[in-house]
């Protein structure tokens, strides 16, 4: 089986098939992440398409000292910001389930999805850092690179995010106990 680095090398050499295989590894993960940062599902899809096009176009500039996922997420974050700045719609405006693409895609569960709470209590960059840390298992260094922030900023803000989410989790637990 061909590993990721071989696919990257082949894609760099001009193989569109290798890039298509590479895309298959990341597209669902990227779309899930973009969904948390865009105002609509269509915007998230557009951001994904733009991200993959940009990645293919500038593949020659990819530095293999970075993880490929870090590089991809960095492009994705920029594209999501670009689309959001064009559409002006703020994520805070998406209060109802009908207009919120993230709420539409969450499988029904007993308690509120913690990522919905995270989006409510954290700002954009801290949310992204938290996502990359806990949903993508990225290291502090990789998150710093993806967000173009210092390692200390990432550490501090992840710690703050943890505190905020811990209290959200406790609130949910106490709420469900109260109902029970």
């Amino acid at each position, binding site marked *: 089986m061909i590993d990721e680095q071989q696919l990257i090398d082949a894609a760099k050499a001009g193989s569109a098939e290798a890039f298509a295989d590479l895309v298959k590894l990341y597209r669902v993960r990227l779309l899930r992440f973009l969904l948390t940062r865009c105002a609509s599902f269509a915007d998230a899809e557009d951001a994904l398409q733009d991200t993959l096009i940009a990645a293919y176009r500038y593949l020659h500039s990819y530095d293999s000292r970075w993880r490929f996922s870090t590089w991809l997420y960095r492009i994705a974050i920029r594209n999501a910001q670009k689309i959001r700045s064009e559409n002006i719609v703020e994520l805070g405006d998406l209060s109802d389930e009908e207009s919120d693409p993230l709420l539409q*895609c*969450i499988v029904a569960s007993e308690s509120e999805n913690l990522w919905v709470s995270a989006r409510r209590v954290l700002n954009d960059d801290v949310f992204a850092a938290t996502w990359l840390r806990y949903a993508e298992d990225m290291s502090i260094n990789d998150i710093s690179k993806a967000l173009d922030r210092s390692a200390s900023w990432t550490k501090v803000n992840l710690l703050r995010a943890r505190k905020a989410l811990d209290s959200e989790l406790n609130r949910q637990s106490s709420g469900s106990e109260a109902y029970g």
Partner: protein
Amino acid sequence: MDKLAKQLRADAALIDVQVSDELERRITASLHGLSPEGQEPPTIRQRPAAFWWASSLTGVAAALIVIAVINSQSRLDEAPTRAPEISPIAVLTTPIIDWKTESAMLTSPLRKELEDLQADIKKAEQKVKEDIGL
């Protein structure tokens, strides 16, 4: 892994997204017409040597035919050539410079001087002749 990390991971997995067929087609179509930057353009496939010989010979033959046709047509259309006549109007309108007049004008003071000198010499010669009694 602590409780919060577990919960976040589990909740991320509960976000159910699928890349639709339409999006898949869009992405494939976008990537299809694209070539990565910084990559050399694909080289043109080498054609067999016979192709170049055939095209060269065709070119030479076409050039010979064109030359032959032009020559044959120029012989048929050939007409006696005559020197172009000079129009009398052109001759009349050409400005004529009177070089002699100009030279005379330029030398007239010298000539007068010369005549005066010659007259003086004649007078002096006459005076000398009178003095010696000739």
